[in-house]
């Protein structure tokens, strides 16, 4: 579904990604862990081309997307993204946040868009909040609207960039539940998170990244119980404590 081949990225003189290669199968949920500054967010942004990789190839559903002649706007519609700080459009209600992309990017008529948005909001458990503005919602509710907004574009895969790390502990559960349900329904997902419970229950594989490279890859058991690399071991021991 998603394939990344030898991606390199520099920000000025800073070498952020140093040759990343991995594969994500359809309906697979992958969790990426790693210390801050290891390039996890940049990697996600390289997949939907919010950040253009310097070299290397990104394939989405078999299509090589980071080459000339492919519109970035089209690529981004294929892959939904959820951000750490939600980034809901503050001037629009919950339902307008979901419909904006449908009506303005996909050109779907307004009433059909509304209908679809209602279904999606119901799916993330927010049917009652459709007319609330983001500032009137809790963090967990905002993040769930953000998930509905990304799903509205019918993405082939979803990218989650630390979706729960800006939330109060009491709201983390509801967002993770929505994500776990998505994974059960067969959505292809790449999740950057440090929620170890989510990683071990939902993830089919875990990648450990450090300093712009994938250090280790394996099931939750491999990574958490018997890490092979020293760096993985020291990182896991810090976050599992």
């Amino acid at each position: 579904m998603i394939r990344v081949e030898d991606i390199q990225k520099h920000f000025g003189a800073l070498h952020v990604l140093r040759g990343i290669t991995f594969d994500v199968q359809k309906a697979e949920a992958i969790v990426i862990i790693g210390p801050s500054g290891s390039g996890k967010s940049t990697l996600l942004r390289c997949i939907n081309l919010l950040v253009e990789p310097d070299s290397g190839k990104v394939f989405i559903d078999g299509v090589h997307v980071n080459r000339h002649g492919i519109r970035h706007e089209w690529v981004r519609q294929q892959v939904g993204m959820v951000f750490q700080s939600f980034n809901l459009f503050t001037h629009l209600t919950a339902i307008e946040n979901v419909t904006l992309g449908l009506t303005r990017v996909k050109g779907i008529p307004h009433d059909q868009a509304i209908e679809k948005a209602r279904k999606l909001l119901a799916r993330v458990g927010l049917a009652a909040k459709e007319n609330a503005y983001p500032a009137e919602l809790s963090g967990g509710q905002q993040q769930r609207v953000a998930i509905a907004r990304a799903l509205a574009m019918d993405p082939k895969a979803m990218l989650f960039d630390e979706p729960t790390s800006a939330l109060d502990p009491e709201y983390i559960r509801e967002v993770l539940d929505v994500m776990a349900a998505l994974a059960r329904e067969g959505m292809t997902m790449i999740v950057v998170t440090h929620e170890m419970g989510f990683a071990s229950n939902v993830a089919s594989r875990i990648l450990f990244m450090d300093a712009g490279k994938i250090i280790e890859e394996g099931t939750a058991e491999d990574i958490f119980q018997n890490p092979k690399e020293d760096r993985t071991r020291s990182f896991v021991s810090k976050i599992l404590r």
Partner: protein
Amino acid sequence: MTNWRKFLRDRWRYFDAALALAVIIGSLVYIYDLLVGNRGLDVAYITRNYPLYLHAVFNVYATTIAFVVGMALGFSVGWLRTARTVSVAKFAASMRVEKRERQEAPSGSEVTRRLLVVLSLLWYGTKYVVRRIGDGFVEIIRGTPLYVQILFASSFFIVFLPQYASEGILIGIIALAINTGGYQAEIFRAGLQTVHSGQVEAARAIGFSRLKAMRYVILPQALRLIIPPLTNEYIGLFKASTLLFVLGVQGEISYIAQHEGFAGDVFEIFAIVTVIFLAITVTLSFVVQALERRFRIPGLGIEQVKLPRGVRLARVGG
């Protein structure tokens, strides 16, 4: 008893406005009384000069056209000024990286590599130059008096486009538009930069192009933020439009200059002119306040506290 209290609470905004007006007009009357009270008000003189008061319409007209044109100019320049330019040092650093990589792992032909370097240099160079032109424009407009700018525009037309040199209104409106464009560029830049970068990222992530993200996500938020400074700018421009009298344009002040020559018994006229300008600007600020309430985003910023019917705030210390 309770009825008039309720009436007062519901209509407080209007009483508030009336009170503000009363204070303003009262002060003017007091000043008038101080200056000409003892010699009496020359009503005939005031009514004889009624065409003067109609000339305020011209000021509104000129200001509005200049303001709208300046808005387009200001938005363009303001947007331009949010463009990121790459510093020479950073560009050189990325070029060094690229050169090292080329030596380590040669790929592609040498010619295409060179071409890419030249193209990126051109792209960043153009961006840099265009942005600096925008910066220069704002600095020039902001750093020179409007009076000088109007005279400059007038002399420009006399020298280079003499066939239009007698079109005082045209020249005046162009001068005002360019002037307000410079100020509005700064207002727009501030507004656009205040919208959180995550908003653009989110819009781009669901497939919006840069232009559409600007139209549907950034501008609606930025415009709400800049309503107050834009109003300020409009009022400032409206007042500044009186300066057009130097072009012989039929505005408030030119009429006085022509008919009264700024000499003698013109206090009454300036008092009336003051009141006319005040009435227009005060009306405008009330309209804008209503606009701001209408477009406020629920849950953001400071909200006027509205109590449900029958609920009263507890009296503190009473």
